[in-house]
Protein backbone atom coordinates (compact mmCIF):
# COMPACT_ATOMS: atom_id res chain seq x y z
CA UNK A 1 0.00 0.00 0.00
CA UNK A 2 2.70 2.45 1.07
CA UNK A 3 4.75 1.46 -1.94
CA UNK A 4 1.82 2.10 -4.23
CA UNK A 5 1.33 5.58 -2.74
CA UNK A 6 5.02 6.40 -3.16
CA UNK A 7 5.09 5.18 -6.76
CA UNK A 8 1.96 7.13 -7.55
CA UNK A 9 3.43 10.28 -6.03
CA UNK A 10 6.76 9.75 -7.77
CA UNK A 11 4.96 9.53 -11.12
CA UNK A 12 3.35 12.88 -10.41
CA UNK A 13 6.64 14.70 -9.86
CA UNK A 14 7.72 14.93 -13.53
CA UNK A 15 4.23 16.07 -14.50
CA UNK A 16 4.33 18.74 -11.79
CA UNK A 17 7.72 19.83 -13.08
CA UNK A 18 6.31 20.08 -16.59
CA UNK A 19 3.35 22.04 -15.27
CA UNK A 20 5.69 24.49 -13.56
CA UNK A 21 7.67 24.95 -16.77
CA UNK A 22 4.48 25.70 -18.71
CA UNK A 23 3.19 28.06 -16.01
CA UNK A 24 6.53 29.86 -15.98
CA UNK A 25 7.15 29.84 -19.72
CA UNK A 26 3.66 31.03 -20.59
CA UNK A 27 4.19 34.38 -18.94
CA UNK A 28 7.81 34.85 -19.95
CA UNK A 29 7.15 34.13 -23.60
CA UNK A 30 5.55 37.51 -23.94
CA UNK A 31 7.58 39.83 -26.09
CA UNK A 32 8.50 42.72 -23.80
CA UNK A 33 5.04 42.80 -22.35
CA UNK A 34 6.10 41.42 -19.02
CA UNK A 35 8.23 44.43 -18.16
CA UNK A 36 5.62 46.89 -19.33
CA UNK A 37 2.96 45.15 -17.32
CA UNK A 38 5.24 45.09 -14.30
CA UNK A 39 5.90 48.79 -14.64
CA UNK A 40 2.17 49.27 -14.88
CA UNK A 41 2.08 51.40 -18.00
CA UNK A 42 2.66 51.23 -21.73
CA UNK A 43 4.84 54.29 -22.14
CA UNK A 44 7.94 54.20 -20.03
CA UNK A 45 11.44 55.31 -20.59
CA UNK A 46 14.18 52.81 -21.43
CA UNK A 47 15.66 53.60 -18.02
CA UNK A 48 12.59 52.44 -16.16
CA UNK A 49 12.44 49.33 -18.30
CA UNK A 50 16.02 48.48 -17.48
CA UNK A 51 15.54 48.99 -13.74
CA UNK A 52 12.41 46.89 -13.75
CA UNK A 53 14.20 44.17 -15.65
CA UNK A 54 16.97 44.11 -13.09
CA UNK A 55 14.53 44.15 -10.19
CA UNK A 56 12.66 41.19 -11.60
CA UNK A 57 15.87 39.40 -12.44
CA UNK A 58 14.94 39.35 -16.12
CA UNK A 59 18.48 40.15 -17.18
CA UNK A 60 19.64 36.72 -16.11
CA UNK A 61 19.52 33.64 -18.34
CA UNK A 62 16.05 32.14 -18.66
CA UNK A 63 16.85 28.81 -16.98
CA UNK A 64 18.32 30.66 -14.01
CA UNK A 65 15.15 32.72 -13.76
CA UNK A 66 13.12 29.53 -13.80
CA UNK A 67 15.30 27.99 -11.12
CA UNK A 68 14.85 30.96 -8.82
CA UNK A 69 11.13 31.11 -9.50
CA UNK A 70 10.68 27.41 -8.81
CA UNK A 71 12.76 27.54 -5.65
CA UNK A 72 10.67 30.45 -4.40
CA UNK A 73 7.45 28.73 -5.36
CA UNK A 74 8.50 25.59 -3.44
CA UNK A 75 9.20 27.66 -0.37
CA UNK A 76 5.76 29.25 -0.64
CA UNK A 77 6.70 32.48 -2.41
CA UNK A 78 4.81 33.05 -5.64
CA UNK A 79 6.13 36.52 -6.25
CA UNK A 80 4.55 39.94 -5.89
CA UNK A 81 1.41 41.13 -7.56
CA UNK A 82 2.06 43.88 -10.12
CA UNK A 83 -1.21 45.56 -9.27
CA UNK A 84 -1.21 45.59 -5.49
CA UNK A 85 2.52 45.09 -4.81
CA UNK A 86 1.57 42.49 -2.19
CA UNK A 87 2.78 38.88 -2.08
CA UNK A 88 0.64 36.71 -4.35
CA UNK A 89 0.40 33.97 -1.73
CA UNK A 90 -1.13 36.21 0.92
CA UNK A 91 -3.74 37.44 -1.54
CA UNK A 92 -4.39 34.00 -3.00
CA UNK A 93 -4.91 31.93 0.16
CA UNK A 94 -8.09 33.56 1.51
CA UNK A 95 -9.55 33.47 -2.01
CA UNK A 96 -8.57 29.86 -2.40
CA UNK A 97 -10.53 29.06 0.76
CA UNK A 98 -13.64 30.68 -0.72
CA UNK A 99 -13.24 28.75 -3.99
CA UNK A 100 -12.61 25.54 -2.06
CA UNK A 101 -15.89 26.02 -0.20
CA UNK A 102 -17.79 26.77 -3.41
CA UNK A 103 -16.20 23.81 -5.17
CA UNK A 104 -16.95 21.48 -2.29
CA UNK A 105 -20.58 22.59 -2.14
CA UNK A 106 -20.91 22.20 -5.90
CA UNK A 107 -19.26 18.78 -5.78
CA UNK A 108 -21.63 17.57 -3.08
CA UNK A 109 -24.63 19.01 -4.92
CA UNK A 110 -23.54 17.30 -8.13
CA UNK A 111 -23.03 14.04 -6.26
CA UNK A 112 -26.43 14.17 -4.56
CA UNK A 113 -28.33 15.20 -7.68
CA UNK A 114 -26.42 13.08 -10.18
CA UNK A 115 -26.48 9.96 -8.02
CA UNK A 116 -30.23 10.32 -7.52
CA UNK A 117 -31.07 10.74 -11.21
CA UNK A 118 -28.58 8.05 -12.21
CA UNK A 119 -30.03 5.61 -9.69
CA UNK A 120 -33.59 6.36 -10.78
CA UNK A 121 -32.57 5.93 -14.41
CA UNK A 122 -30.97 2.55 -13.81
CA UNK A 123 -33.61 1.16 -11.44
CA UNK A 124 -36.83 2.37 -13.00
CA UNK A 125 -35.68 2.01 -16.62
CA UNK A 126 -38.28 2.68 -19.33
CA UNK A 127 -39.66 6.19 -19.36
CA UNK A 128 -37.65 7.38 -16.37
CA UNK A 129 -34.46 6.27 -18.04
CA UNK A 130 -35.41 8.18 -21.16
CA UNK A 131 -36.35 11.28 -19.21
CA UNK A 132 -33.12 11.29 -17.19
CA UNK A 133 -30.93 10.76 -20.23
CA UNK A 134 -32.76 13.51 -22.08
CA UNK A 135 -32.37 15.84 -19.11
CA UNK A 136 -28.68 14.99 -18.95
CA UNK A 137 -28.13 15.79 -22.62
CA UNK A 138 -29.86 19.12 -22.09
CA UNK A 139 -27.96 19.95 -18.90
CA UNK A 140 -24.72 19.11 -20.64
CA UNK A 141 -25.65 21.50 -23.43
CA UNK A 142 -26.36 24.44 -21.11
CA UNK A 143 -22.98 25.88 -20.10
CA UNK A 144 -22.68 26.82 -16.43
CA UNK A 145 -22.30 30.52 -17.20
CA UNK A 146 -25.56 30.46 -19.14
CA UNK A 147 -27.30 28.73 -16.24
CA UNK A 148 -25.78 31.23 -13.83
CA UNK A 149 -26.88 34.16 -16.00
CA UNK A 150 -30.41 32.81 -16.21
CA UNK A 151 -30.52 32.25 -12.44
CA UNK A 152 -29.29 35.76 -11.79
CA UNK A 153 -31.89 37.06 -14.24
CA UNK A 154 -34.70 35.05 -12.68
CA UNK A 155 -33.92 35.78 -9.04
CA UNK A 156 -32.51 39.25 -9.56
CA UNK A 157 -35.51 40.45 -11.52
CA UNK A 158 -38.41 38.58 -10.08
CA UNK A 159 -37.33 37.93 -6.51
CA UNK A 160 -35.06 40.91 -5.86
CA UNK A 161 -35.97 40.98 -2.18
CA UNK A 162 -34.20 37.72 -1.45
CA UNK A 163 -30.90 39.43 -2.07
CA UNK A 164 -28.93 36.23 -2.36
CA UNK A 165 -26.33 37.72 -4.61
CA UNK A 166 -24.45 39.44 -1.88
CA UNK A 167 -21.62 37.22 -0.85
CA UNK A 168 -21.41 36.89 2.93
CA UNK A 169 -18.02 35.98 4.42
CA UNK A 170 -18.00 32.81 6.47
CA UNK A 171 -16.37 34.45 9.47
CA UNK A 172 -19.15 37.03 9.62
CA UNK A 173 -22.16 34.73 9.31
CA UNK A 174 -21.57 31.02 8.61
CA UNK A 175 -25.18 30.24 7.77
CA UNK A 176 -25.59 33.34 5.62
CA UNK A 177 -22.36 32.40 3.89
CA UNK A 178 -23.65 28.98 2.94
CA UNK A 179 -26.98 30.42 1.79
CA UNK A 180 -25.19 33.00 -0.34
CA UNK A 181 -23.19 30.25 -2.05
CA UNK A 182 -26.19 28.01 -2.68
CA UNK A 183 -27.24 29.31 -6.11
CA UNK A 184 -23.66 29.63 -7.36
CA UNK A 185 -22.96 26.08 -6.25
CA UNK A 186 -26.04 24.82 -8.05
CA UNK A 187 -25.11 26.56 -11.31
CA UNK A 188 -21.63 25.12 -11.03
CA UNK A 189 -22.90 21.64 -10.15
CA UNK A 190 -25.39 20.98 -12.94
CA UNK A 191 -22.94 20.21 -15.75
CA UNK A 192 -20.83 18.03 -13.47
CA UNK A 193 -23.94 16.23 -12.21
CA UNK A 194 -24.39 14.84 -15.72
CA UNK A 195 -21.10 12.97 -15.48
CA UNK A 196 -22.04 11.74 -12.02
CA UNK A 197 -25.48 10.68 -13.23
CA UNK A 198 -24.17 8.77 -16.25
CA UNK A 199 -21.57 7.00 -14.14
CA UNK A 200 -24.08 6.17 -11.42
CA UNK A 201 -26.40 4.69 -14.02
CA UNK A 202 -23.63 2.55 -15.46
CA UNK A 203 -22.41 1.49 -12.02
CA UNK A 204 -25.89 0.57 -10.76
CA UNK A 205 -26.62 -1.42 -13.93
CA UNK A 206 -23.32 -3.20 -13.52
CA UNK A 207 -23.95 -3.99 -9.86
CA UNK A 208 -27.58 -5.02 -10.55
CA UNK A 209 -26.40 -7.81 -12.81
CA UNK A 210 -24.03 -9.18 -10.16
CA UNK A 211 -24.83 -12.56 -8.65
CA UNK A 212 -24.85 -11.21 -5.11
CA UNK A 213 -27.88 -9.08 -5.92
CA UNK A 214 -29.68 -12.18 -7.16
CA UNK A 215 -28.65 -13.92 -3.93
CA UNK A 216 -30.03 -10.99 -1.95
CA UNK A 217 -33.35 -11.35 -3.74
CA UNK A 218 -33.32 -15.11 -3.17
CA UNK A 219 -32.87 -14.37 0.53
CA UNK A 220 -36.25 -12.65 0.50
CA UNK A 221 -34.76 -9.39 1.79
CA UNK A 222 -36.84 -6.25 1.68
CA UNK A 223 -36.46 -4.09 -1.41
CA UNK A 224 -35.02 -1.21 0.59
CA UNK A 225 -32.39 -3.46 2.20
CA UNK A 226 -31.29 -4.71 -1.21
CA UNK A 227 -31.19 -1.16 -2.57
CA UNK A 228 -29.23 0.26 0.33
CA UNK A 229 -26.87 -2.52 1.39
CA UNK A 230 -26.35 -4.31 -1.89
CA UNK A 231 -26.84 -1.88 -4.79
CA UNK A 232 -25.96 1.58 -3.52
CA UNK A 233 -23.08 0.58 -1.27
CA UNK A 234 -21.38 -1.20 -4.14
CA UNK A 235 -22.13 1.39 -6.81
CA UNK A 236 -21.09 4.33 -4.67
CA UNK A 237 -17.33 3.76 -4.77
CA UNK A 238 -16.82 4.33 -8.50
CA UNK A 239 -19.31 7.19 -8.39
CA UNK A 240 -17.46 9.05 -5.65
CA UNK A 241 -14.22 8.46 -7.52
CA UNK A 242 -15.63 10.01 -10.67
CA UNK A 243 -16.94 12.97 -8.71
CA UNK A 244 -13.49 13.52 -7.24
CA UNK A 245 -12.01 13.57 -10.72
CA UNK A 246 -14.39 16.39 -11.69
CA UNK A 247 -12.43 18.85 -9.55
CA UNK A 248 -10.66 20.30 -12.59
CA UNK A 249 -13.99 21.02 -14.28
CA UNK A 250 -15.32 22.58 -11.08
CA UNK A 251 -12.25 24.78 -10.64
CA UNK A 252 -12.44 25.92 -14.26
CA UNK A 253 -16.13 26.64 -13.93
CA UNK A 254 -15.66 28.57 -10.71
CA UNK A 255 -13.89 31.30 -12.66
CA UNK A 256 -17.09 32.05 -14.53
CA UNK A 257 -19.45 31.49 -11.64
CA UNK A 258 -17.48 33.68 -9.23
CA UNK A 259 -17.35 36.45 -11.79
CA UNK A 260 -21.08 36.31 -12.42
CA UNK A 261 -22.08 36.12 -8.75
CA UNK A 262 -19.24 38.44 -7.62
CA UNK A 263 -17.78 35.97 -5.16
CA UNK A 264 -14.29 36.96 -4.00
CA UNK A 265 -12.69 33.60 -4.79
CA UNK A 266 -9.70 32.45 -6.80
CA UNK A 267 -11.67 32.48 -10.04
CA UNK A 268 -12.62 36.12 -9.74
CA UNK A 269 -9.05 36.89 -8.70
CA UNK A 270 -7.80 35.23 -11.87
CA UNK A 271 -10.30 37.11 -14.00
CA UNK A 272 -9.30 40.43 -12.45
CA UNK A 273 -5.63 39.62 -12.88
CA UNK A 274 -6.11 38.70 -16.53
CA UNK A 275 -7.81 42.05 -17.18
CA UNK A 276 -5.00 43.81 -15.33
CA UNK A 277 -2.31 41.65 -16.91
CA UNK A 278 -1.05 40.82 -13.46
CA UNK A 279 1.21 38.02 -14.65
CA UNK A 280 2.68 36.76 -11.35
CA UNK A 281 -0.84 36.23 -10.06
CA UNK A 282 -1.92 34.33 -13.19
CA UNK A 283 1.22 32.23 -12.95
CA UNK A 284 0.58 31.50 -9.30
CA UNK A 285 -3.04 30.54 -9.80
CA UNK A 286 -2.24 28.27 -12.74
CA UNK A 287 0.49 26.54 -10.73
CA UNK A 288 -1.54 26.19 -7.54
CA UNK A 289 -4.75 24.91 -9.13
CA UNK A 290 -2.95 22.42 -11.38
CA UNK A 291 -1.04 21.11 -8.38
CA UNK A 292 -4.26 20.77 -6.40
CA UNK A 293 -5.95 18.91 -9.26
CA UNK A 294 -2.98 16.57 -9.69
CA UNK A 295 -2.77 15.80 -5.99
CA UNK A 296 -6.52 15.28 -5.84
CA UNK A 297 -6.24 12.73 -8.65
CA UNK A 298 -3.52 10.90 -6.75
CA UNK A 299 -5.69 10.95 -3.65
CA UNK A 300 -8.65 9.54 -5.54
CA UNK A 301 -6.43 6.80 -6.99
CA UNK A 302 -5.14 5.82 -3.59
CA UNK A 303 -8.56 5.89 -1.97
CA UNK A 304 -9.92 3.75 -4.78
CA UNK A 305 -7.08 1.24 -4.48
CA UNK A 306 -7.81 0.93 -0.76
CA UNK A 307 -11.46 0.17 -1.35
CA UNK A 308 -10.64 -1.94 -4.36
CA UNK A 309 -8.69 -4.44 -2.26
CA UNK A 310 -12.02 -5.21 -0.62
CA UNK A 311 -14.07 -5.01 -3.78
CA UNK A 312 -11.99 -6.97 -6.26
CA UNK A 313 -12.22 -10.72 -6.19
CA UNK A 314 -9.19 -13.02 -6.13
Amino acid at each position, binding site marked *: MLRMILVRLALTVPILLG*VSIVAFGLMRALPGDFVLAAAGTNTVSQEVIDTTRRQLGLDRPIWEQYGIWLQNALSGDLGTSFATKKPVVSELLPRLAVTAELTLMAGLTALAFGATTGLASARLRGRTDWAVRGLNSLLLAV*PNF*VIATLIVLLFGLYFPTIGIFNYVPFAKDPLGNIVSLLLPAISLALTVSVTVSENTRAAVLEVSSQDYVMVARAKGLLARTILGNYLVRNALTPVITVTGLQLAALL*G*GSILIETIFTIPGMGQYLFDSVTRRDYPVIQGIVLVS*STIVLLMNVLVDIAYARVDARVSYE
Partner: protein
Amino acid sequence: MSEPAPRPRHRGQVMVAVGVAMLATLILIMILGPSIAPYSPSATSPNSLDGPTAAHWLGTDSIGRDLLSRLIVGGRGTLTITFVAVALALTAGLILGLTSGYIGGKVDLIIMRLLDVVFAFPVFLLAIAVVAALGPTVKNLILTIAIVYTPAMARVVRAPVLSIKRWDHVEAARSVGVGEFAIALRHVLPMAISPILVQTSLILANTIFTVTALSFLGLGPPPPDPNWGSMLAEARQFMELAPLTVIGPAVAIVFASLTFIVLANGLREMLDVGSR
Protein backbone atom coordinates in the same frame (compact mmCIF):
# COMPACT_ATOMS: atom_id res chain seq x y z
CA MET B 1 -41.41 -5.98 -15.97
CA SER B 2 -40.26 -3.09 -18.12
CA GLU B 3 -41.64 -1.75 -21.34
CA PRO B 4 -39.66 -2.73 -24.42
CA ALA B 5 -37.11 -0.05 -25.25
CA PRO B 6 -36.23 0.71 -28.87
CA ARG B 7 -33.11 -1.06 -29.99
CA PRO B 8 -29.99 1.08 -29.31
CA ARG B 9 -28.75 0.97 -32.87
CA HIS B 10 -32.03 2.24 -34.25
CA ARG B 11 -32.30 4.88 -31.55
CA GLY B 12 -28.75 5.94 -32.44
CA GLN B 13 -29.68 6.40 -36.08
CA VAL B 14 -32.61 8.63 -35.14
CA MET B 15 -30.40 10.73 -32.88
CA VAL B 16 -27.71 11.05 -35.52
CA ALA B 17 -30.35 12.14 -38.05
CA VAL B 18 -31.60 14.81 -35.65
CA GLY B 19 -28.03 15.90 -34.91
CA VAL B 20 -27.16 16.14 -38.58
CA ALA B 21 -30.27 18.23 -39.22
CA MET B 22 -29.31 20.58 -36.38
CA LEU B 23 -25.74 20.76 -37.67
CA ALA B 24 -26.99 21.54 -41.18
CA THR B 25 -29.02 24.41 -39.74
CA LEU B 26 -25.98 25.78 -37.98
CA ILE B 27 -23.77 25.48 -41.05
CA LEU B 28 -26.41 27.06 -43.25
CA ILE B 29 -26.67 30.04 -40.92
CA MET B 30 -22.91 30.20 -40.81
CA ILE B 31 -22.55 30.25 -44.61
CA LEU B 32 -25.47 32.50 -45.43
CA GLY B 33 -24.75 34.71 -42.41
CA PRO B 34 -25.00 38.35 -43.40
CA SER B 35 -27.21 37.68 -46.42
CA ILE B 36 -30.10 36.34 -44.32
CA ALA B 37 -29.66 38.79 -41.46
CA PRO B 38 -32.48 41.36 -41.58
CA TYR B 39 -30.15 44.24 -40.71
CA SER B 40 -26.46 44.96 -40.75
CA PRO B 41 -25.02 43.71 -37.46
CA SER B 42 -23.35 47.07 -36.85
CA ALA B 43 -26.23 49.34 -37.95
CA THR B 44 -27.46 51.32 -34.99
CA SER B 45 -30.96 52.67 -34.45
CA PRO B 46 -32.49 55.01 -31.88
CA ASN B 47 -34.51 52.17 -30.36
CA SER B 48 -31.91 50.88 -27.93
CA LEU B 49 -32.55 48.03 -25.50
CA ASP B 50 -35.96 47.21 -26.93
CA GLY B 51 -37.59 43.90 -26.17
CA PRO B 52 -38.76 41.75 -29.05
CA THR B 53 -40.86 43.70 -31.59
CA ALA B 54 -42.15 43.07 -35.10
CA ALA B 55 -39.21 44.97 -36.54
CA HIS B 56 -36.62 43.43 -34.23
CA TRP B 57 -37.64 39.86 -33.38
CA LEU B 58 -35.11 39.48 -30.60
CA GLY B 59 -34.92 43.14 -29.66
CA THR B 60 -32.02 45.56 -29.82
CA ASP B 61 -28.86 46.08 -27.82
CA SER B 62 -27.62 49.10 -25.89
CA ILE B 63 -26.81 51.11 -29.01
CA GLY B 64 -29.86 49.97 -30.96
CA ARG B 65 -28.31 47.21 -33.06
CA ASP B 66 -30.61 44.40 -34.17
CA LEU B 67 -29.95 41.37 -31.96
CA LEU B 68 -31.19 38.76 -34.43
CA SER B 69 -28.79 40.04 -37.08
CA ARG B 70 -25.96 40.11 -34.56
CA LEU B 71 -26.84 36.60 -33.45
CA ILE B 72 -26.74 35.28 -37.02
CA VAL B 73 -23.50 37.00 -37.90
CA GLY B 74 -22.06 36.23 -34.47
CA GLY B 75 -22.76 32.56 -35.04
CA ARG B 76 -20.44 32.67 -38.00
CA GLY B 77 -17.61 33.90 -35.80
CA THR B 78 -18.25 31.49 -32.94
CA LEU B 79 -18.65 28.47 -35.19
CA THR B 80 -15.68 29.31 -37.41
CA ILE B 81 -13.40 29.49 -34.39
CA THR B 82 -14.89 26.25 -33.08
CA PHE B 83 -14.54 24.27 -36.29
CA VAL B 84 -11.06 25.50 -37.16
CA ALA B 85 -9.78 24.96 -33.62
CA VAL B 86 -11.19 21.44 -33.39
CA ALA B 87 -9.88 20.62 -36.87
CA LEU B 88 -6.42 21.67 -35.69
CA ALA B 89 -6.72 19.68 -32.46
CA LEU B 90 -7.95 16.68 -34.44
CA THR B 91 -5.03 16.89 -36.87
CA ALA B 92 -2.50 17.25 -34.06
CA GLY B 93 -4.23 14.51 -32.08
CA LEU B 94 -4.23 12.17 -35.08
CA ILE B 95 -0.54 12.72 -35.74
CA LEU B 96 0.48 12.40 -32.08
CA GLY B 97 -1.91 9.58 -31.20
CA LEU B 98 -1.10 7.52 -34.28
CA THR B 99 2.64 8.01 -33.91
CA SER B 100 2.50 7.26 -30.22
CA GLY B 101 0.23 4.24 -30.45
CA TYR B 102 1.65 2.74 -33.63
CA ILE B 103 5.35 3.12 -32.91
CA GLY B 104 4.98 2.50 -29.17
CA GLY B 105 7.98 2.09 -26.88
CA LYS B 106 9.99 5.16 -25.94
CA VAL B 107 8.29 7.41 -28.49
CA ASP B 108 4.93 6.54 -26.94
CA LEU B 109 6.25 7.17 -23.46
CA ILE B 110 7.70 10.57 -24.29
CA ILE B 111 4.67 11.82 -26.22
CA MET B 112 2.19 10.65 -23.62
CA ARG B 113 4.16 12.13 -20.71
CA LEU B 114 4.37 15.47 -22.52
CA LEU B 115 0.64 15.41 -23.15
CA ASP B 116 0.06 14.49 -19.50
CA VAL B 117 1.54 17.86 -18.60
CA VAL B 118 -1.01 19.70 -20.73
CA PHE B 119 -3.69 17.35 -19.45
CA ALA B 120 -2.86 18.23 -15.87
CA PHE B 121 -4.23 21.77 -16.26
CA PRO B 122 -7.91 22.43 -15.84
CA VAL B 123 -8.88 23.08 -19.48
CA PHE B 124 -10.65 26.37 -18.98
CA LEU B 125 -7.98 27.72 -16.65
CA LEU B 126 -5.27 26.90 -19.15
CA ALA B 127 -7.29 28.50 -21.93
CA ILE B 128 -7.65 31.72 -19.94
CA ALA B 129 -3.96 31.77 -19.11
CA VAL B 130 -2.89 31.16 -22.70
CA VAL B 131 -5.26 33.75 -24.13
CA ALA B 132 -4.14 36.18 -21.45
CA ALA B 133 -0.53 35.58 -22.43
CA LEU B 134 -1.02 35.71 -26.18
CA GLY B 135 -3.73 38.36 -26.31
CA PRO B 136 -7.37 37.86 -27.32
CA THR B 137 -7.37 37.70 -31.11
CA VAL B 138 -9.23 35.22 -33.30
CA LYS B 139 -5.97 33.56 -34.25
CA ASN B 140 -4.80 33.15 -30.67
CA LEU B 141 -8.20 31.90 -29.58
CA ILE B 142 -8.09 29.17 -32.21
CA LEU B 143 -4.54 28.26 -31.26
CA THR B 144 -5.36 28.12 -27.56
CA ILE B 145 -8.34 25.87 -27.99
CA ALA B 146 -6.42 23.61 -30.34
CA ILE B 147 -3.67 23.28 -27.72
CA VAL B 148 -5.93 22.50 -24.77
CA TYR B 149 -7.91 19.82 -26.61
CA THR B 150 -5.01 18.11 -28.39
CA PRO B 151 -4.15 15.72 -25.51
CA ALA B 152 -7.73 14.44 -25.25
CA MET B 153 -7.78 13.89 -29.01
CA ALA B 154 -4.41 12.12 -29.02
CA ARG B 155 -5.52 9.77 -26.24
CA VAL B 156 -8.67 8.81 -28.10
CA VAL B 157 -6.69 8.02 -31.25
CA ARG B 158 -3.95 6.14 -29.40
CA ALA B 159 -6.09 3.72 -27.38
CA PRO B 160 -7.65 1.75 -30.27
CA VAL B 161 -4.46 1.96 -32.36
CA LEU B 162 -2.59 0.09 -29.61
CA SER B 163 -4.73 -2.99 -30.11
CA ILE B 164 -5.53 -2.70 -33.81
CA LYS B 165 -1.86 -2.69 -34.78
CA ARG B 166 -1.66 -6.29 -33.52
CA TRP B 167 -4.52 -7.54 -35.66
CA ASP B 168 -3.95 -10.08 -38.39
CA HIS B 169 -4.75 -7.84 -41.33
CA VAL B 170 -1.92 -5.51 -40.33
CA GLU B 171 0.52 -8.39 -40.32
CA ALA B 172 -0.88 -9.51 -43.66
CA ALA B 173 -0.35 -6.07 -45.18
CA ARG B 174 3.20 -6.00 -43.84
CA SER B 175 3.96 -9.43 -45.29
CA VAL B 176 3.04 -8.28 -48.79
CA GLY B 177 5.39 -5.35 -48.45
CA VAL B 178 3.11 -2.43 -47.60
CA GLY B 179 5.15 0.35 -45.98
CA GLU B 180 4.70 1.14 -42.28
CA PHE B 181 3.40 4.63 -42.99
CA ALA B 182 0.79 3.29 -45.40
CA ILE B 183 -0.21 0.56 -42.94
CA ALA B 184 -0.72 3.05 -40.14
CA LEU B 185 -2.77 5.33 -42.36
CA ARG B 186 -4.76 2.83 -44.43
CA HIS B 187 -5.05 -0.28 -42.29
CA VAL B 188 -4.97 0.93 -38.67
CA LEU B 189 -6.54 4.37 -38.61
CA PRO B 190 -9.80 3.49 -40.43
CA MET B 191 -10.53 0.82 -37.79
CA ALA B 192 -10.26 3.40 -35.02
CA ILE B 193 -12.62 5.89 -36.61
CA SER B 194 -15.73 5.27 -34.46
CA PRO B 195 -14.39 6.43 -31.09
CA ILE B 196 -12.61 9.32 -32.82
CA LEU B 197 -15.88 10.51 -34.35
CA VAL B 198 -17.70 10.35 -31.02
CA GLN B 199 -14.92 12.15 -29.18
CA THR B 200 -14.60 14.84 -31.86
CA SER B 201 -18.28 15.55 -31.52
CA LEU B 202 -18.00 15.84 -27.74
CA ILE B 203 -14.98 18.11 -28.04
CA LEU B 204 -16.92 20.29 -30.48
CA ALA B 205 -19.55 20.75 -27.77
CA ASN B 206 -16.86 21.53 -25.21
CA THR B 207 -15.27 24.00 -27.59
CA ILE B 208 -18.55 25.86 -28.04
CA PHE B 209 -18.49 26.19 -24.27
CA THR B 210 -14.87 27.35 -24.12
CA VAL B 211 -15.20 29.86 -26.97
CA THR B 212 -18.40 31.43 -25.69
CA ALA B 213 -17.19 31.37 -22.08
CA LEU B 214 -13.98 33.16 -23.00
CA SER B 215 -15.92 35.77 -24.96
CA PHE B 216 -18.35 36.03 -22.06
CA LEU B 217 -15.39 37.00 -19.86
CA GLY B 218 -14.24 39.52 -22.46
CA LEU B 219 -11.40 37.33 -23.71
CA GLY B 220 -13.01 36.52 -27.05
CA PRO B 221 -12.48 38.09 -30.43
CA PRO B 222 -12.20 41.87 -30.02
CA PRO B 223 -15.25 44.08 -30.76
CA PRO B 224 -17.03 45.21 -32.86
CA ASP B 225 -17.46 41.70 -34.31
CA PRO B 226 -20.52 40.14 -32.67
CA ASN B 227 -20.06 36.94 -30.71
CA TRP B 228 -22.54 34.83 -28.77
CA GLY B 229 -20.52 34.92 -25.56
CA SER B 230 -20.00 38.66 -25.50
CA MET B 231 -23.64 39.21 -26.49
CA LEU B 232 -24.74 37.23 -23.46
CA ALA B 233 -22.35 39.21 -21.26
CA GLU B 234 -23.76 42.45 -22.61
CA ALA B 235 -27.34 41.29 -22.20
CA ARG B 236 -26.53 40.42 -18.62
CA GLN B 237 -25.15 43.88 -18.05
CA PHE B 238 -28.41 45.51 -19.18
CA MET B 239 -30.59 42.79 -17.74
CA GLU B 240 -32.65 45.07 -15.57
CA LEU B 241 -33.55 47.25 -18.52
CA ALA B 242 -34.10 44.58 -21.15
CA PRO B 243 -34.25 41.13 -19.57
CA LEU B 244 -35.42 39.36 -22.72
CA THR B 245 -32.26 40.18 -24.67
CA VAL B 246 -30.61 37.36 -22.73
CA ILE B 247 -32.75 34.78 -24.50
CA GLY B 248 -31.25 35.03 -28.01
CA PRO B 249 -27.60 34.32 -27.21
CA ALA B 250 -28.48 31.82 -24.48
CA VAL B 251 -30.64 29.77 -26.85
CA ALA B 252 -28.04 29.98 -29.61
CA ILE B 253 -25.27 28.69 -27.34
CA VAL B 254 -27.42 25.87 -26.00
CA PHE B 255 -28.61 24.91 -29.48
CA ALA B 256 -25.06 24.69 -30.80
CA SER B 257 -23.76 22.57 -27.91
CA LEU B 258 -26.86 20.40 -27.97
CA THR B 259 -26.23 19.72 -31.67
CA PHE B 260 -22.88 18.12 -30.94
CA ILE B 261 -24.06 16.31 -27.82
CA VAL B 262 -26.97 14.74 -29.69
CA LEU B 263 -24.56 13.81 -32.49
CA ALA B 264 -22.07 12.30 -30.04
CA ASN B 265 -24.69 10.29 -28.16
CA GLY B 266 -26.28 9.12 -31.40
CA LEU B 267 -22.96 8.10 -32.93
CA ARG B 268 -22.01 6.30 -29.73
CA GLU B 269 -25.13 4.15 -29.86
CA MET B 270 -25.14 3.71 -33.61
CA LEU B 271 -21.48 2.72 -33.83
CA ASP B 272 -21.65 0.83 -30.54
CA VAL B 273 -18.75 2.67 -28.92
CA GLY B 274 -18.31 1.96 -25.19
CA SER B 275 -19.27 5.01 -23.15
CA ARG B 276 -15.76 5.36 -21.80
